[in-house]
């Protein structure tokens, strides 16, 4: 017989405590709601926000005159015709307000002569990116929000709590069932509004720039709760992720800020700059967009002009020690500890999974198709179309987080939401109770196998054969995973990984299916068997979960905008 699960009652349940989740929590609490902020790991330390190195794009106009509409034009241009223009506009229009709020909360944006510094980043028409030195943007955003969360009494925090399923009552989301990792105990949560702020899916790939808790949880939770996803085929690869020599204690996307500040030269094994061959001449400046650079590096490697570990060289040998120190201070010492002297040697870089453009479909209020379910940050689909502009990720975390928190509070204040009923949680409680010991599969090894499949066959360059092979491997892994969770003990990572694989395999299948269906190449989705962008594919794909995943095409997201 099952023991009674632990139970929580709250107004607003927020899943994930990165930038989007924390901003949503603050906004909902300030509007008078009780907030339950749950994270599968520590509060405000996991996810993608804390990993951000430098740029946050915003039309602040402190460097040169700017207006949100210019940022918006650049965002749409980068998105290759697929942006949900309502969401892109919201991001650009409300960005400055959130950035100034963060400034008021004491984040410490880098300044020169009293005004906030803005750096130029590829794809922008003018210097637009604010940052915190040195390579400290993400940690500073997290710390600032964590401080405000801590002093906001109405926010109750719960770390090490994995949300397993959302529960629906008469078609509305009314809460969730969770697993408390330190004890292995089930928890039910009743909430009048729920916000998914779990970030993206980069953990699906072997080499990625995000933390181990970005395995697409939120997409799987939304699908199982009946909310559709869009643009799932568009995974952004960051072209110059660190490859070699082995570097510890540093984030692999650290070379991006180096390029912003110092230019740098991207070279092949023959010492030639090569991006001009693929349409963009760099000449020591950092102007090539992420999709073009990823393509250029991969093609050089394919032509056997890659670096020894299978990437390209990035050189700052034109910079003096003094210039390097001026730009990056203590980071230069951290590099020295890794035996890297940039004045004397290039490093090797290669594309690395970085961000997901796709996600849960939401309106301008950040509400999904399912009443009671909201979404914020990277988990939202559509704002960035087929390719995200540099610097838009933190901005959307803040803007969408704030909007989701506000909308959730409006729902809470309206009477008549469906109350939570314990019976609707029963199926998930039974699943948690069905756990068993099994040693015929290793969950950690299976995650590695899935990451290899996704990297090799659902990476930046796709073909029908590769995608079909990936779908077969995913089906095979789903069968091996079985219907009953594995593991029993307190902090049993096998149990966590079983539930992670349940989500990751569902999301991986959705990505591969959407990629197989899109028979053209656009932005981050490149089909080697269908090169070139086709006008008839200027549509978004929408994925829903029924007895299986179904895909439909919709031009409404892009059109909603045009009106």
């Amino acid at each position, binding site marked *: 017989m099952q023991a009674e699960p*632990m*139970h*929580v*009652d709250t107004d607003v349940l927020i899943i994930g405590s990165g930038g989007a989740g924390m901003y949503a929590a603050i906004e909902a609490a300030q509007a008078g709601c009780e907030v339950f902020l*749950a994270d599968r*790991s*520590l*509060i405000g*330390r*996991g*996810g993608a926000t*804390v*990993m951000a190195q430098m740029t946050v794009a915003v039309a602040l106009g402190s460097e040169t005159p700017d207006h949100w509409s210019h940022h918006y034009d650049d965002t749409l241009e980068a998105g290759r015709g697929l942006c949900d223009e309502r969401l892109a506009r919201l991001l650009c229009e409300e960005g400055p307000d959130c950035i100034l709020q963060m400034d008021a909360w004491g984040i410490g944006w880098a300044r020169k002569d009293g005004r906030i510094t803005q750096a130029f980043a590829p794809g922008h028409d003018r210097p637009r990116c604010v940052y915190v030195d040195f390579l400290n943007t*993400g*940690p500073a955003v997290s710390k600032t929000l964590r401080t405000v969360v*801590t002093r906001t009494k109405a926010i*109750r*925090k*719960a*770390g*090490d*709590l994995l949300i397993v399923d959302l529960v629906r009552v008469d078609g509305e989301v009314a809460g969730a069932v969770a697993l*408390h990792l*330190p004890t292995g105990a089930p*928890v039910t949560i009743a909430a009048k509004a729920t916000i998914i702020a779990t970030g993206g899916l980069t953990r699906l790939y072997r080499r990625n720039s995000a*933390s*181990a*808790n970005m395995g697409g949880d939120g997409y799987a939770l939304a699908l199982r709760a009946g909310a559709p996803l869009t643009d799932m085929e568009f995974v952004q690869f960051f072209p110059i992720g660190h490859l070699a*020599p*082995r*570097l*510890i*204690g*540093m*984030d*692999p996307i650290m070379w991006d800020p180096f390029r912003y500040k110092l230019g740098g030269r991207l070279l092949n094994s023959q010492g030639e700059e090569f991006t001009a061959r693929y349409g963009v001449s760099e000449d020591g400046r950092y102007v090539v967009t992420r999709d073009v650079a990823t393509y250029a590096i991969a093609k050089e490697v394919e032509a056997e002009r890659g670096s020894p570990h299978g990437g390209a060289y990035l050189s700052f040998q034109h910079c003096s020690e003094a210039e390097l120190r001026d730009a990056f201070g203590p980071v230069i010492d951290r590099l020295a500890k*890794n035996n890297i002297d940039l004045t004397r040697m290039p490093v090797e870089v290669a594309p690395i999974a970085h961000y997901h453009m796709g996600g849960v479909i939401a309106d301008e209020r950040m509400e999904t198709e399912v009443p009671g379910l909201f979404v914020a940050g990277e988990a939202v689909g559509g704002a960035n179309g087929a390719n995200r502009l540099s610097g838009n990720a933190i901005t959307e975390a803040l803007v969408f987080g704030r909007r989701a928190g506000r909308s959730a509070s409006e729902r809470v204040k309206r009477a008549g939401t469906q109350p939570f009923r314990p019976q609707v949680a029963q199926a998930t409680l039974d699943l948690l109770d069905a756990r068993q010991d099994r040693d015929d599969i*290793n*969950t*950690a*090894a299976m995650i*590695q196998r899935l990451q290899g499949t996704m990297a090799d066959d659902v990476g930046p360059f796709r073909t029908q054969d590769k995608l079909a092979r990936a779908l077969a491997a995913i089906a095979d892994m789903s069968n091996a995973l079985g219907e009953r969770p594995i*593991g029993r*003990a*307190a*902090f*049993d*990572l*096998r149990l966590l*990984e079983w539930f992670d694989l349940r989500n990751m395999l569902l999301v991986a299948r959705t990505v591969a299916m959407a990629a197989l269906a899109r028979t053209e190449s656009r932005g981050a989705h490149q089909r080697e068997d269908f090169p070139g962008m086709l006008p008839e594919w200027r549509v978004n794909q929408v994925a829903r979960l029924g007895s299986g995943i179904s895909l439909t095409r919709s031009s409404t997201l892009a059109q909603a905008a045009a009106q």
Partner: protein
Amino acid sequence: MSAMARLKVWRGDAADAGRWERYDVPFEPGQSVLDGLRWIRANRDPSLAIRFSCINANACKECMMELDGKTVYACTARLEAREMTLAPLSNKRLVRDLVTEIAPPAERFVSERR
């Protein structure tokens, strides 16, 4: 060229007496202790409890443990070709194996309603 580290790892939870287990771990020079622990989980024993989020960036600060009696981050300590002793933090409550209760009290889930 791969070298071998022997990781002597403390296993057990608050309810049992605990024991030491030794694992031989292959590594390339430059790899971290966390790389070694993740190798053990994927290749020897997935039931080994460790905690980490960011893997390599030293941003999440979750992978604190004791290496040869000194507190380190497993993601920035390097593997060496010798026996290395790994234990949970001695000044925090043990959860299991190398995992201790490191979250501030106000950030832990407790079932009581406020």
